[in-house]
């Protein structure tokens, strides 16, 4: 008897379907609720976890990295666009970045009203960590934002609903128009068919596509959360939407192993990092920057170039590398007038340093405790992490979306903010590409922009009927296939994991990570790749696509793991093809094309976009013109 018969099916009709529960999904829910209520529409949010602690801000944050301070004339939109452009080596959509920047202060002011403690100075202004960053006591940041989003849905009465612990597996698309999504509950045997007139993909970035540096218990200690498993990229790719920047991965340098944040150390404490010989590698390797002009001449230096200067020393055997925490603390204390105030200052700094970790990367505090590190005495190692896909930080991968009517060049807009090239399908946060550096506040803000636009789309298309001709039964069969595989074959062998008929999702993930690590420039290959390596990697990915049909799960949790890894596979595919297409090295420090080792502004100052054909399974990768609103 087929396993499908064990499942209940719930069909849910809504106007707007928001997929995800993190910062951008909460922003979309907050905003869409307001406009939907005025237009008598329904909004439904579907989260694979619990909204209070879902998404990348689940653990909390110690800073908000994007706040312009427009009301105090602290910065201009143009300043911000220039900063992001420089950090991304020129490849951003100015219109999208400016659109987020012009609204983001409003989101931060709302967070404060909703109960988020934001540090204030003696003039009642936010305390700056750096030019764009402000300091918060952010242990409950996500809980507070989720509360406001849920309250916004509640204001709609029964027209506002949210589902938790429902995992989405397939988009429903008809003639390049989204009509909904299907998924399953990870708590009970229930399948959900969501029918919607517009859908927002806000399911975060992708982690564990590349092999992490720690592969034992520490596998889970990725810098970005392991539950960001590529659902957004998969959803838009599978729907046939055009994608952008799929080559632009992000590799942060963080405290080694536990990946604690370094921002406060660099920006607030003015710490320097050095190689094992105590040399300031940023200073020493400066001449290298000429090669990366104009970006190498920018201040602040692009993130990937800072990585690059460290990696030069690393290849010369000059590691380990350290954050010079002790000197930074000494310098700050020394600037105090007398011994008593220096002591007080030291105590204060110590609190700030620990809170930085305890608010957002508690493991780093645990690592300091387990290795007896006191930052005022002992310096800590820093290292580059494994690559991640995250367009909310210094990465750029995501869907290609429509820009704002009043700012976007004509070829960048097709009617609705943040709509993908599939009608009615929207993307925001890590799901939307080329609008890097949005961080938590900007992701929430992009969610708001998208939420309003999606309601506008629905209002303009009153006759949309969210049905598709797709064979839902077939999709459900595919969704549950891993359970079927396990049930059918698990008794064949005496070992539930070693069985020639199927593959369990954990080994499937390890195989993917090994391919990506060794062929697509992961950590063990010092982030170096070439066309021949990528071609070989693609061959192995093809086998993975075939074997994905033999994934096996013995419960709903493992069924989710199977699908997460299918999602990662599509992200990997898009990445390898885009890496191969861009015949230059633009982001040394994130990856190196050894066969094209130089920056080539004449030919490659453009977007690399890609599209998957859901009918044929074929990919096309192509250049897209880059039009600037602001010059560096």
């Amino acid at each position: 008897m087929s396993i499908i018969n064990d499942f209940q099916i719930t069909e849910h009709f809504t106007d707007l379907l928001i997929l995800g529960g993190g910062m951008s999904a909460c922003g979309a829910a907050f905003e869409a609720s307001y406009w939907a209520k005025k237009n008598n529409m329904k909004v439904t949010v579907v989260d694979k976890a619990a909204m209070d602690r879902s998404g990348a801000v689940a653990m909390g944050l110690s800073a908000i990295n994007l706040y312009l301070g427009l009301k105090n004339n602290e910065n201009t939109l143009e300043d911000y666009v220039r900063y992001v452009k420089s950090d991304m080596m020129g490849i951003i959509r100015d219109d999208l970045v400016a659109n987020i920047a012009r609204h983001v202060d409003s989101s931060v002011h709302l967070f404060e009203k909703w109960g988020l403690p934001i540090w204030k100075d003696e003039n009642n202004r936010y305390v700056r960590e750096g030019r764009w960053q402000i300091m918060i006591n952010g242990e409950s940041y996500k809980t507070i934002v989720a509360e406001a989003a849920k309250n916004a849905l509640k204001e709609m009465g029964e027209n506002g609903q949210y589902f938790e612990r429902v995992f989405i597996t397939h988009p429903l698309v008809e003639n390049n128009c989204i009509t909904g999504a299907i998924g399953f509950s990870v708590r009970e045997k229930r399948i959900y068919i969501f029918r919607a007139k517009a859908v927002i993909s806000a399911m975060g970035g992708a982690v564990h596509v590349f092999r992490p540096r720690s592969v034992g218990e520490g596998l889970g200690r990725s810098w970005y959360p392991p539950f960001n498993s590529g659902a957004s990229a998969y959803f838009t790719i599978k729907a046939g939407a055009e994608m952008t920047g799929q080559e632009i991965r992000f590799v942060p340098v963080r405290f080694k192993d536990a990946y604690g944040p370094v921002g406060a150390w660099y920006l607030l404490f003015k710490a320097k990092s050095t190689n094992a010989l105590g040399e300031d590698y940023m200073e020493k390797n400066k001449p290298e920057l000429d090669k990366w002009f104009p970006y190498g001449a920018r201040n602040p230096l692009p993130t990937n170039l800072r990585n690059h200067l460290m990696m030069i020393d690393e290849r010369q055997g000059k590691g380990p590398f350290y954050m010079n925490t002790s000197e930074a603390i000494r310098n700050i204390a020394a600037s105090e007038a007398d011994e008593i105030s220096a002591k007080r200052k030291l105590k204060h700094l110590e609190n700030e340093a620990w809170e930085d970790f305890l608010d957002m990367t508690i493991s780093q505090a645990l690592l300091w405790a387990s290795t007896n590190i006191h930052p005022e005495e002992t310096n800590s190692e820093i290292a580059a992490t494994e690559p991640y896909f995250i367009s909310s930080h210094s990465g750029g991968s995501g869907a290609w979306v429509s820009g704002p009517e009043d700012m976007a060049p004509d070829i960048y807009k097709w009617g609705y903010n943040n709509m993908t090239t599939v009608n009615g399908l929207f993307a925001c946060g890590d799901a939307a590409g080329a609008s890097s550096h949005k961080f938590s506040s900007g992701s929430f803000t992009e969610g708001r922009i998208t939420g309003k636009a999606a309601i506008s789309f629905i209002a303009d298309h009153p006759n949309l009927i969210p049905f598709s001709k797709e064979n839902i039964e077939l999709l459900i069969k595919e969704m549950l296939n891993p359970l079927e595989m396990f049930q059918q074959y698990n008794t064949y062998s005496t070992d539930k994991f070693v069985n020639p008929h199927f593959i369990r999702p954990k080994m499937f993930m390890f195989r993917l990570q090994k391919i990506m690590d060794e062929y697509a420039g992961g950590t063990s290959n010092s982030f170096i790749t070439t066309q021949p390596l990528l071609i070989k990697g693609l061959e192995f990915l093809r086998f993975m696509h075939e074997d994905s049909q033999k994934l096996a799960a013995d419960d709903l949790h493992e069924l989710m793991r199977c699908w997460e890894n299918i999602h990662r596979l599509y992200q990997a595919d898009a990445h390898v093809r885009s890496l191969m297409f861009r015949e230059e090295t633009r982001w040394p420090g994130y990856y190196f094309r050894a066969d094209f080792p130089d920056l080539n502004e004449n030919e490659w100052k453009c977007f690399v976009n890609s599209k998957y054909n859901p009918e044929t399974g074929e990919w096309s990768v192509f250049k897209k013109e880059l039009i600037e609103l602001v010059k560096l």
Partner: protein
Amino acid sequence: MPSFVIAEKCDGCKAQDKTACQYICPNDLMLLDKSNNKAYNRSPEMCWECYNCVKICPTQAIEIRGYADFMPLGGIVQPLRSSDSILWSVKFRSGAVKRFKFPNRTIPEGSAVPDAGFSTNSQDLKSNVLRTEPESLGINEIQVIKH
């Protein structure tokens, strides 16, 4: 073992339909063992050490033992989360102890009003004005960079 459950302290959240840790874990790792009514982390190597299970546990039965593949034993970082602050105790391998207390919210839980008292200055779906704007921006109009 990233998060682990102290057997003696866990009561399986017997008063509720599901355990608090199972409810909150963003990676769906916490599970109730029905044979002994105790919770456990089913996949420690997928644990982010986000501490959400530790923070939410009503009997303080959950702690974190750092990832064994890179953390020496002996460090303990344990939170106690209250309605407006969080208290951390950090115990070093050496035995040294530090305590920190940080605020985590300024208004009572549940009382966040979406509009937060700001009014929205346009009801036009096509305008660039978002909910609560421009009042919540603190400036009079939405800025533009022209192409």
